[in-house]
């Protein structure tokens, strides 16, 4: 296993990006009593004047952010991914429908969040936010890419939802490679013609490990970090389908409706090839260590390798 000590958590990247925006007086940060967890506390410490505490009241936060946005501010509002869902209808009707630029960040997403248990583990956020017209939906894998993508949001003219994760994972990016990241464009980490593994978030590392072990068996995989789930990089996906003829998706999310769902939708209508989805199999999580849970739910590198072989054999 790659040691997480040298790694970073995507939520830290979010905090670092907010901190870098303190010089822009249009940027405002909204919190719902989870600033220490989402890392918006880093901005608060530097610029309390532009940080709004709204207490444990997520629904209220959504429309406060929308109101500030229409008055010329760029709001970054955060809570846990799961508790953002408490304000889903507020986001739908009050933000996405009028296309108001509010940047929502949901931290502690996925079962990777661990011992807090199923009530805290959002495994449906990417799916539900993706259904909203006008929304951009992202899920970066590490702190460096999360920072780059958060900074890019300052100039993004649509509402967005970004999921970040609680725990550190090995970094897949350097400052230089992260500088190439563009919202809506998948990032290729490894190239091979036998199978394409399209991953996001904390499962990108597992996908890279899977590609290594597949290579030892003579199977060469392309690995893509699909940090943006919407708008989806369909051009790249169709390209991969044509080149590899078999696709595996991997995400810390339900296999229903998230990255796997989005890729499958694209593939069935554009260029049908076998698709295998790695993710949470239509069940809730439970308390446990992150790695223990990944193992129990069949979301580790070896599960991705097996899925790759299944996809290839179905070709």
């Amino acid at each position, binding site marked *: 296993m790659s040691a997480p000590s040298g790694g970073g958590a995507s939520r830290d990247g979010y905090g670092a990006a907010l901190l870098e925006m303190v010089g822009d007086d249009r940027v405002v940060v909204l*919190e719902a*009593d*989870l*600033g*220490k*967890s989402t890392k918006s*506390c880093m901005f608060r410490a530097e610029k309390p004047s532009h940080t709004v*505490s*709204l*207490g*444990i*009241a997520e*629904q*209220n936060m959504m429309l406060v952010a929308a109101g500030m946005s229409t008055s010329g501010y760029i709001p970054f509002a955060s809570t846990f991914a*799961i*508790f953002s869902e*408490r304000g889903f209808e507020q986001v739908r009707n009050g933000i996405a429908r009028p296309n108001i630029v509010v940047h929502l960040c949901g931290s502690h997403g996925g079962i990777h969040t661990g*011992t*807090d*248990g*199923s*009530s*805290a583990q959002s495994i449906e956020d990417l799916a539900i936010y993706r259904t909203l017209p006008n929304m951009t939906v992202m899920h970066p894998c590490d702190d460096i890419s999360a920072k780059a993508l958060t900074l890019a949001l300052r100039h993004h003219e649509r509402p967005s939802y970004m999921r970040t994760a609680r725990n550190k994972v090995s970094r897949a990016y350097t400052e230089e490679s992260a500088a190439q990241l563009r919202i809506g464009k998948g990032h290729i980490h490894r190239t091979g013609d036998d199978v394409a593994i399209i991953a996001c978030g904390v499962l990108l590392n597992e996908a890279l490990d899977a590609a290594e072990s597949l290579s030892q068996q003579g199977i060469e995989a392309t690995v893509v970090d699909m940090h943006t789930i919407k708008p989806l990089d369909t051009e790249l996906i169709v390209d991969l389908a044509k080149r590899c003829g078999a696709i595996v998706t991997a995400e810390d999310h339900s296999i229903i409706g998230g990255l796997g769902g989005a890729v499958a939708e694209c593939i069935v209508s554009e260029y049908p090839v076998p698709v295998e989805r790695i993710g949470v199999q239509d069940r809730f999580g*439970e*308390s*446990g*260590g992150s790695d*223990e*849970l990944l193992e*129990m739910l069949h979301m580790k590198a070896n599960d991705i390798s097996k899925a790759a072989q299944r996809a290839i054999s179905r070709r």
Partner: protein
Amino acid sequence: MAERGMGLDIAELEMMAKRCRRNIVRMVYGIGAGHPGGSLSAIDMLTGLYGHRLRVDTNDSTWGNRDRFIMSKGHASPGVYSILHERGFLTESDLWTYRKLGGSCQGHVDMKWCPGVDFSAGSLGMGLSFGIGCALAATLDDSDRTAWVMLGDGELQEGQIWEGVMAAVHHEIGNLNVIVDRNGIQNDDFCESQMRMFDVAEKFAAFGWAVMEIDGHDMQQVVNAIDWADQVIDGPACIVMHTIKGKGVSYMENNPKFHGAAPNEEQFNLAMEELS
């Protein structure tokens, strides 16, 4: 037919609360995570409820006519598990499954995993509505069973709480009682800096609830308040208990850091000394 409470006097209840405090700190220290602060502020009331009042059947945790206890601030799960152990729903070794894979003691109280838990919580603001449903069903059933809901003071910031507060009065739900753990602290900091709550008792009273304020660490007051709430039958009753978050462990008391953090080894040993 199960009895009310466990037939314990005030001194025995106080002893039980102390044993619970030790187990709360042990659970959180054992896994290196969890929520000691709001468990320690709530534990005297939990002891009063289970030791003095609630009618439950440890041989049949799903007995339909049991009183319902709804821990809406589900992160205070070590408090609930420690009292469920005292009451006989959990063995001591069950407690050490706290936050572990496959354990009955999940990170947040969960009715699917733990016998004696009536509500799966963890997302704040939901328990009062659930309690109203339980109480309305009891009335339809012509049953004398009751519903008791514990809320955090930070939790009161959720809009859904006030939807429930209105509904309980509108429907004159006399078999429903709420306890607010007024410890003055939430996740990031003191309520005073996150979202000021002002006079909580006044707020409930303004909505039409019967309200009593007590010192939530005085067992005699706790027991009296429970008996008082039981007598309020023409509408919902609210006990606002003034408490100290982290009560019983010096360095945790009134310290926002121990909302959701475990003690280190040295701190753990000190806590065990203080709670001996």
